[in-house]
């Protein structure tokens, strides 16, 4: 910290002037602003660089047709603000209730302009430190042993102004359009520039390259005026309702699937764009051919000399010429501004559009460089929501908490509870927590047990990818075992080709909860923290290594996991068996009895009754407990008549008849060994 003070403001390094900040954030989009908010709240020295004159410049342009596909649910029937964030995909996290997106738009799928306006407000209302009109064009490192990470980040903007930071947060998004190069690709229009006026497409035949939401969005816009639209892409269409992945094709954009399958001339084709070639005929019509036909020919020689597939195969699918070919292939991260020393490498395979990062969102190549927002989606690509506002607002907070611990000695926020609150604290979180819900299988709540399991510490929304480093990353101790609470879909439920509407897809009984298909809470119990090696070797289909015990809370149609018997009871049994204790609640009267009959008391009595906070319970409740056979009524007992309990009371029998519950003598309460 002293170092930070020392190095703050201006400093001279080898003749160049550097403006110093502890934290530099590249990009004032949702992720950059979200990070800025947390840094500001923590009172850190930070700056946000934005190349445009206003925040959210990506949203000023995209999506081209202006309809956001992130939902903005006005009404959930609940006032719980945390719960409501589960169904608000656009708001950023803040303490300011004015900055909820539903106050900006009433549309379920809001307009992108609203997002721009929202981000402007977010930056200005919260007085975030954003330096606009500053495009960072180069980033390099300066070795310095005293720096937080052994080096400083040196940033250069378009005006050759230099900045120096201890930590660099890259929230630049993915904005470089993906292009394919094939013969004739010069005839292809890009999504970025193509006309969005349907009139420009009247009566035309259109080929769209790509099969993502932007491709379908483009098609949707012109569906009514074109002669036909064909859509070609290597991969098959993945529907988000089948995959639970919001980045796949959303139902709101899938009009073309409708017209294709309802024989209305439009169609989908599979094929590798790399094999494609386009030739233009004299009338300006575009013909599809294959690259290998052109291999030994000069494309400029004219269409007549070029073999078209239909010359050999007269029913070739795309033999009809097109008026326009539009490329909608998405974007990739801008790797170009990073000096090689930073080793900002693209990921492998289908995550090559993102830089390589660790599950802690720190760059694999450079310590102290964190990637936030859309660009950080490699961690959970095609799995969770980390590439979208409703996901990365939480991962950004997680990164901030990691930084607070690493650089400022502020351990991960936690609350300590007595063990009697264990079931409650889990139930509370799985029912309302939005971070667990949105970033399912990526962020987890962690419960660290204290010695003798009399108390525990609750940490929220920790990235499970770095579970092994928990002690180092959070500054908390995990010596006595831990629970990891995450949310999961069923293992075999979702997938591109699965029937997600099959009959009996939902599990209703708690004892079969592990077969739950819909998103449901899962609790992992580890007697000790998993090691790095275990984390590395665990099965890729599983979010975590093999636990010592696992519990699934059965999926719930209302995502309301507060049912006493189906949800809470099995959870309590699981926790009890992990901790080897009895977590039942007892009325004061039971504790009184135990005090005179047992040398040890159950946790509920120890932490409640014995601290003079016993649960006395109203008459009605005591009566119900007696009827349930869980409390004995001694009021009417004539002690001289040594009859066993219940002899005088027909209520037990009544109960048996009404509920089919076997009578359990109170001894079960008093003497657990007998069971």
């Amino acid at each position, binding site marked *: 910290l002293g170092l930070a003070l020392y190095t703050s403001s201006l400093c001279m390094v080898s003749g160049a002037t550097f403006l110093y900040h502890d934290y530099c954030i590249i990009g004032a989009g949702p992720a950059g602003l979200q990070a800025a908010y947390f840094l500001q709240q923590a009172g850190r020295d930070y700056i946000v660089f934005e190349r445009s004159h206003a925040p959210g410049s990506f949203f000023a342009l995209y999506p081209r047709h202006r309809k956001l596909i992130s939902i903005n649910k006005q009404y959930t029937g609940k006032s*719980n603000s*945390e719960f409501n964030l589960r169904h608000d995909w656009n708001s950023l996290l803040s303490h300011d209730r004015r900055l909820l997106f539903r106050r900006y738009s009433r549309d379920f799928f809001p307009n992108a302009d609203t997002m721009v306006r929202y981000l402007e407000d977010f930056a200005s209302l919260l007085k975030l430190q954003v330096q606009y009109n500053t495009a960072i064009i180069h980033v390099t490192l300066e070795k310095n042993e005293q720096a937080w990470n052994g080096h400083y980040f040196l940033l250069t903007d378009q005006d050759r102004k230099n900045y120096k930071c201890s930590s660099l947060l890259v929230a630049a998004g993915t904005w470089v359009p993906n292009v394919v190069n094939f013969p004739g690709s010069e005839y292809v229009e890009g999504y970025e520039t193509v006309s969005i006026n349907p009139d420009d497409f009247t009566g035309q035949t259109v080929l769209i390259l790509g099969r993502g939401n932007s491709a379908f969005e483009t098609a949707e816009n012109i569906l009514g005026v074109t002669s036909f639209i064909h859509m070609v892409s290597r991969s098959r269409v993945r529907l988000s309702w089948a995959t639970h992945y919001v980045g796949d094709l959303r139902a709101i954009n899938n009009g073309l699937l409708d017209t294709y399958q309802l024989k209305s001339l439009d169609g989908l084709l599979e094929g590798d764009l790399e094999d494609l070639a386009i030739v233009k005929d004299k009338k300006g019509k575009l013909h599809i051919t294959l690259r290998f036909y052109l291999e030994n020919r000069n494309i400029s020689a004219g269409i007549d000399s070029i073999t078209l597939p239909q010359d050999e195969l007269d029913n070739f699918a795309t033999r009809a010429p097109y008026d326009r070919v539009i490329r909608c292939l998405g974007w990739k991260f801008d790797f170009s501004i990073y000096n090689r020393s930073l080793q900002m490498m693209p990921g492998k395979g289908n995550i090559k559009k993102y830089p390589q990062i660790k599950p802690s969102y720190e760059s694999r190549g450079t310590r102290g460089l964190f990637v936030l927002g859309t660009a950080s989606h490699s961690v959970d690509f095609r799995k969770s929501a980390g590439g979208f506002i409703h996901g990365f607002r939480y991962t950004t907070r997680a990164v901030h908490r990691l930084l607070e611990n690493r650089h400022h000695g502020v351990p991960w926020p936690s*609350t300590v*509870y007595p063990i009697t*609150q264990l079931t409650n604290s889990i139930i*509370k979180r799985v029912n*309302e927590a939005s971070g667990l819900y949105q970033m399912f299988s990526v962020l987890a709540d962690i419960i660290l047990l204290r010695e003798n399991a009399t108390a525990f510490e609750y940490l929220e929304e920790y990235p499970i990818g770095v579970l092994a480093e928990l002690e180092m990353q959070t500054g908390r101790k995990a010596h006595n075992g831990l629970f990891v609470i995450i949310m999961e879909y069923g*293992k075999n439920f979702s*997938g*591109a*080709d699965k029937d997600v509407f099959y009959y009996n897809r939902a*599990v209703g*009984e708690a*004892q*079969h*909860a*592990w*077969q739950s298909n819909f998103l449901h809470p899962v609790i992992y119990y580890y007697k000790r923290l998993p090691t790095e090696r275990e984390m590395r*070797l665990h*099965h890729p289909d599983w979010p975590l290594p*093999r636990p010592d015990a696992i*519990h699934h809370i059965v999926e719930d149609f209302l995502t309301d996991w507060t049912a*006493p*018997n*189906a949800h809470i*009871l099995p959870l309590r*049994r699981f926790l009890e*068996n992990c901790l*080897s*204790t009895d977590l*039942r*609640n*007892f*009325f004061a*009267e039971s504790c*009184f009895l135990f*005090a*005179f*009959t047992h040398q*040890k008391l159950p946790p509920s009595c120890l932490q409640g009754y014995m*601290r003079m*906070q016993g*649960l006395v*319970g*109203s008459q009605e*409740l005591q009566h*119900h407990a007696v*009827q*349930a056979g*869980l409390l004995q*009524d001694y009021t009417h*007992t004539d*002690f001289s008549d040594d009859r*066993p309990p*219940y002899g005088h009371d*027909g209520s037990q029998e009544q109960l048996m008849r009404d509920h089919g519950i076997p009578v*359990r003598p109170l001894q079960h309460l008093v*003497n*657990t060994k007998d*069971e």
Partner: protein
Amino acid sequence: MSAQKDRWVSSLVFLLFCASSIPKCGSASLQLEPSPQHYFSGLEAGKASLAFFTPSVSPGAQPFLEQVESSAEALQDYGVSVVKVNCPKEDASKYCGKENALRKAFLFRGNRLIREFPTDALFDVNSIVANVLFALLFNEVKYIETLADLENIENALKGKSNVVFAYVPATGTAEHRAVMEAAFVYGTIHQFVLTTEAALLKAISHDDPDVSSAWLLFCHCQRAPDPAQPCRRTALAQPLTLLNIHRHLKLMGAPLVTEVAEDPEKISTVHLQLGLPLVFILSQKETQEADRRTAEFVAWQLLGKAGVALLSRDLVELNVLQRSNVALKTPDEGMPIQYLVLEDTDEVITLVEDKNKVKQIQKDEQEEEEEEDEDEKENNNQDIQDDQVVEAVSRDKKRELPLEQILVLTEENFHSSLSKAAQAVVLFYASWEAVSLAVLRSYSEVGALLKGTPGVLLSRVNCWDWPGLCSQENVTQFPTMRIYKEGQQSVTYGGMWGTEEMSSFILLSQVPCPLKLATMDEAEGYLRGEFPPELSSHHHPSLLGVFSTATSKAREAFEEAGNILSGHVRMGMYFEDDALVLSQKYSVSPPALLLSRSGGRSVEGIALSNHSVQDMVQMIRYELLDIFPEITVPNLPQYLQLGKPFLILFSAGDISEMESKEMLKLAKGRPQQAFVACWLNLKKTPVGHGILRTHFSTTPSLPLLLWVNLHAGGQVFKFPSEQSITEMNILSWLEKLQAGLEIPSSTLSEEDWKPPLPAYDFLQMMESSMPELSPHPGDTRAQQPPQSPAGDTARGDTATQEEPSQESTAEEFGSPGRNLRGTAPRLAARDKQGKRHSEL
């Protein structure tokens, strides 16, 4: 079943053995006599013998003799010897001489000839035995031909003995033999009547009997109440064999209704021994007479098919439905008794008569039980709520709580509402959490109790609706009760969640703590509990700090302690000029505390020497404890915190003055008390019965004095009941106790509080269906298809491969497919959980 049969067969054999043991019999069954002279000279008086006179060579009689030989053994059991008398050629006496005689058999008793049988009547063993016994039992078995004969016999025997009426289509048959053999055993007990007249049989039975088969009726003449009425008759439903007749007679001889007063499981009657079910009519004191009549009625109907017992529920503790009125005990070993709720007696009869039905029920139940066992194994009752608080709250959830008195606070109105009220009580709770809801119920009672109390606002915040508000108010646990004064500082409640305790806290919190008293009158009134007036109805001990103006340090500490104890202790302070006068009244000098109990009748002066706040709080708490308290559920923890053993007097009601005086002497006697002397009023604290029941198997007499080592060892010692409770007796007992001379009556259980039931082992279930989760990920990883970038098609393949495995595991664990085998009761029992969403 077979065991039962063996038992009664062996008893029959024993019976027959008794009968046969009358004569001393030789080992050889068929005796051979060389000559008639020899034979006649050897006849014993009273002993029966059947003789055949045969010439040395008589080929025609050969097959007959074979039958005779085999019947000899059977007849021997009845003391009849069968003798083959050789007729020497030269003999021409009465039996040997006549050609005719050689075709006959002669029955002698002693040397008197009783009957002579033509050999064609003795065609086989049955006929020989039947005819011989018939002849011998001429007096015991009456042969009749008409209905009138039967009625005459019956009338003659009414009230005296019973009649066994047998019809055989012909004499000399196996049935005839069986009747005779039975008559041989039972002839002295019952009057046997025999007929071969089909007309007679038709006359006495209402429906058309099959005259070609034998019948046996038991006529209950002994029990016939009215001489004018014919005797009730009970037919033997089984074929006439000796065993069946024996069984029938046994059953008829058994009491009609057995009255039992012990555990039906332990009851055994002749019916059960004979392999018949036993029907219990469950009776209650109130309905005993009617029940007995019912039982008798049923017993008549079931005579010979089942036994009937009358079981008084008042005498036997049954762990069954109160509604059950009939129980059925089957002879099968290990079968539990079925308790049934039946509408009328016909159901009882059909239940028994329809043997198949019984069997079916048994079978069903067995299956059901097996299924239940399976279930048990499967879930071990894990899905049954065993948390008393959760269960009580969920049973109460349909009742609407009277919460009109309690303001609902939200994020919007929280601050504005609190700032308006001088004192606002806020209960933070979560609407899904059982303990919160239990407290909310008591809180609603507080609302009713404090209705109209000026200046107090009762309100609540549901943290499930307003998590932001709760975390902003730093509420991390539910429930939390806070009192906000003018919307500013707050006091968190730390007492019992009972209506009284919460109300008292709220009322006490109304008054500043400590309350500054301005005049001597106020101070005196305060000690009497009359000032301030708003607390006059509350009977708390009052604590008054008396300070001279100079002792500001002590006063500050006292004020600080007041903040901590606010709401729990009634505290006042007085530091006017005449403080010295006040304190000297109670022979202390300021700074001092005056502790007033029971409305100022006893005021204790305590000098204040330590000025640390913590110590003062500690001291005040300690001083407020009673010397000989009545232990109750709410106050026990305060005394437990002292960490001392308890000397506790259990009393059925209030303790007597003498006991109280002696105990108080004992408690006061030792200033540095090593134990807590207290008493428990079982009327007020009935759970005390539970304590006694745990420690004493038999009921100890009250009052009962116990020494309980609550914190060390947990031994429980019982003060000898023959000694009177006096200080001296207790002290000497305690000395012995300390010296280890007493034996503890009981010990507090040392058991740990383990999980009451196991959890679902999902890990094991998952591992057996998904081996990739197994503890050795390295091994299985190799078999996994590599995750390729173009994994979409590959993923499709694996998906189809996985499909069947998923199904098979589903079956394995009985998951989604299990509804197929669900029976109606199972569905009923489970429907609370709702099977599947898609079915809704």
